[in-house]
């Protein structure tokens, strides 16, 4: 094989066993965007209008506000929240009172995202990414936040806490600290990739079953994914670098949208830590949650605009192809503590909108002690004969919304949410 042949093969991906041609028709998979408000938000600042309940510390200046079938907690400090629901309630479903079944951050995160407290499960977005109908270079793109994996670790593409992935792609990861190191020229790098791909093809032909085949095929796919990413055009991962503590996550959301719109990713995660840092975890000064919610909805306002105006793979608005879940790993204790904050609480709420979501709907409710009430999954209404909502119900619902078998989550979906 000569140089020209090597380069041609590398460019075309012909040495890569699982390459997907750019011109092949691509079926549309619904996609998932997770916005994780890590730290534990307080549902009584938005989702749980428990006014008049002596067991709940509510804000002094807040009141219930009903728009359509949704009733939220409204405050003069959160004008964006109210206006957002005014504009978009028809597309939004609120799920109230699901029980995470822990009160520690680490365990709650794992429970929320996988349905189990152990380390032997993949999180919902990873499972969704694994069940795409086509190969994507960024199956599950994590701009920030956790990803829990057992089987699908290789499908998670983390940008890195400080944007390390762009540095790896560009070579700055090496050239910055080692300016005297000679990185290969573009042609030499392509030749090297081609030689490696040829070797993988040779080894793949005789690889034994199990881990050996997984190694070869996984490696070939990884090289292919890199090539697709570099050739894909239009996605600038560098703009997804974490911004200043008080800068929010606009940039990361834009990258997530680019990846989903371009069909580079099937799932994406953006973590919003609250205004100016990790401020959802308010064991003191719970009032700061109000600022966090207001800022969150400023981001959601931009996000909804983008989802409605960007064109998806099918030619319609991207909003019809992307399901968005906004969630937090736990709730907060209904009663303020001695420090003016609220401690951890195992019952919480989340919010869904976008593709497949039946909006203008509130599922579930809290009882007088701020425990979740059992729910009829078909109607979404509280029902003493219904089921107590747990993270697997959330996972099953997400799976159903994006076209993955809900049984993989180990629970029934909340069918009321399915449009």
């Amino acid at each position: 094989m000569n140089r020209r042949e090597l380069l041609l093969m590398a460019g075309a991906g012909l040495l890569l066993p699982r390459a997907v041609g750019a011109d092949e028709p691509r079926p549309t998979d619904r996609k998932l965007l997770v916005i994780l408000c890590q730290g534990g938000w307080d549902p009584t600042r938005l989702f749980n209008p428990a006014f008049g309940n002596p067991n709940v510390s509510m804000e002094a200046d807040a009141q219930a506000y009903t728009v359509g079938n949704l009733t939220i907690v409204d405050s003069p400090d959160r004008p964006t929240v109210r206006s957002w629901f005014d504009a978009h309630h028809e597309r939004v479903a609120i799920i109230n009172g699901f029980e995470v079944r822990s009160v520690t951050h680490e365990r709650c995160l794992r429970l929320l995202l996988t349905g189990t407290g152990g380390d032997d499960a993949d999180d919902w977005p990873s499972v969704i990414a694994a069940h795409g109908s086509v190969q994507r270079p960024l199956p599950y793109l994590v701009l920030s936040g956790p990803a829990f994996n057992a089987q699908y670790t290789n499908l998670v593409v983390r940008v890195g806490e400080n944007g390390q992935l762009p540095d790896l792609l560009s070579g700055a990861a090496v050239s910055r600290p080692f300016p005297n190191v000679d990185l290969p020229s573009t042609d030499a790098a392509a030749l090297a990739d081609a030689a490696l791909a040829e070797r993988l093809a040779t080894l793949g032909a005789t690889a034994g079953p199990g881990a050996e085949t997984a190694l070869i095929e996984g490696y070939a796919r990884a090289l292919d994914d890199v090539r697709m990413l570099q050739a894909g055009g239009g996605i600038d991962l560098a703009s997804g670098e974490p911004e200043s503590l008080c800068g929010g996550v606009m940039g990361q959301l834009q990258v997530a949208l680019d990846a989903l719109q371009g069909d580079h990713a099937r799932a994406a995660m953006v973590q919003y830590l609250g205004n100016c840092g990790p401020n959802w975890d308010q064991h003191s000064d719970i009032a700061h949650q109000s600022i966090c919610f207001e800022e969150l909805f400023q981001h959601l306002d931009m996000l909804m605009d983008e989802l409605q105006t960007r064109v998806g793979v099918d030619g319609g608005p991207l909003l019809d192809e992307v399901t968005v879940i906004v969630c937090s790993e736990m709730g907060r204790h209904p009663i303020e503590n001695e420090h003016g904050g609220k401690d951890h609480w195992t019952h919480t709420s989340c919010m869904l909108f976008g593709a497949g979501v039946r909006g203008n709907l509130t599922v579930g409710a809290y009882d007088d002690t701020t425990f979740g009430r059992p729910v009829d999954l078909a109607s979404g209404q509280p029902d003493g004969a219904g089921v107590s909502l747990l993270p697997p119900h959330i996972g099953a619902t997400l799976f159903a919304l994006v076209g993955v078998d809900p049984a993989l989550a180990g629970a029934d979906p909340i069918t009321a949410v399915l449009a």
Partner: protein
Amino acid sequence: MIAVLALLACAPAAAPDAEAQLVALPAPQLLRRMSLELRGVLPSTEQLDAVEADPALLATYQEQYLTDPRLEDRLVALLAERWHTRVDTFDIRYYDYGLDMEQEFAFERSIGEEPLRLMAHVVMTEAPWSEIVTADYTMANDLLRELWPMDDAGGQTGWRVTHYTDGRPAVGVLATNGLWWRYTTSTFNLSRSRVAAASQLLTCYDILQRPISFSATPALADADGTSTAVQEQDACVACHATIEPAAAAMFGFVPMVSYNVDEVETYHPEREPLGASTLGVSPAWYGTPIDGLAELGPAIAADPRFASCAVQTFASALWRRPTGPEDDARLDALRVAFQDADQRVRPLIRAILAGGTFQAGGFVDGADDVTVQRERTRRLLSADQLESAVADLTGFTWEERGFDQLQNDDLGYRVLAGGVNGENVLRPQQDPGLTWSLAVRRLAEAAASTVVTNDLGATTPRLLTVPADARPGDAAFDEQLRALAWRLHAVRPSDDDLTTWAALWSAVEATDGARAAWTAVVAVLLRDPAFVAE
């Protein structure tokens, strides 16, 4: 496989059925796996030649590796994958001690490695494993000794035996700041989460996996109700009857103020009695009464699950996969070997290495699907292994601004390279992915550039001995490719492989010159699946 097993000492008494479906790696590749697991570096060419000619020498080299000082670093890396203490952030930051950013990585890694170093020291000194919870010492480096209340015998450098001077009991890792800075508690939690961590790490029993529903405990809506519920409500008592008594023994480590250096770096003996009075229970470990923290370590060591957990921990680490019920027979055999050796870990490692699960390189015809899916016949090198093996081969270490870039995620690429961050990535990546392939590529390119710069034309080359003017077809050129492949992959290359690499060399040399050509070839060999896996 039977032949190879017979060559190694201390094999388990009987090979369970699942292992009968496994085929061992050829001797040179098995030597490579042993060397990478025990030393973090590749075997020398001479060692590969020797075991290729005489597989019986595997046992000889295994014993050498087991006494190699680099085993200590490997133990730290292996234990870190389960103990999760090598995190990038603690409640107390480097600047709280007046350190600058260049010292951040050293600060974080020193803290996280304290309990790991103690455990590795126990192994290296042939002490029984129980010493990890009964030792009257800890391990510290210069930085920790400077920061924390520790004695200083003087005259030593690096990690060494050290004693806290604040009156903390002799309970090994249970008395290390490193463990409790990772597994924090609060004035509300009062060490309950630390009990769960200790249970999981030392007995492999995860209390928090018990199915519970807080909905069954309506009293939780107020603080007093919570305190009562954990002692009286059935749904709470199931866990808290275990948790509260053990937590009561840990009050010397409970800070009265969070995020306060003085509070969390120092043990507080005067707070020990507060445990029983605050939690309303007498200290105990799973029903065995104890008199405070000093007796907690021995109680854990006497827990039958402690030894089993050690076996499970090291088996899982060296098998490169989680253990499960299907491994019970194998683990039982290893447990016997461990107990027969008075709970010393080197004999346990020896027994694990002698087993078919560690040695697996393939399957017999007709192996069942469950076995094929479960057993790791090829294992990706961990980020730690990649780093140490490449550094040993090429002299290249990937550092920036004081950060070891394959051991952190603040600035580095640990998780992107398949590693564990101890917070939300708790298992090493098992199969290649996009970020892994990019991290490996950049590491390989930089290492290749380094070794070519240093070796070509040098009088004492590290890896490349080829004359700078050699070309494909020259005997020296072909021999260099064969030698590289043998050293890096422990496999004799095929003619087709040699043709591929020679073609790459020629293609790059045509435009970029010989040095760039060798850089490309060495980088490709370092990226090869035969290098990045074992």
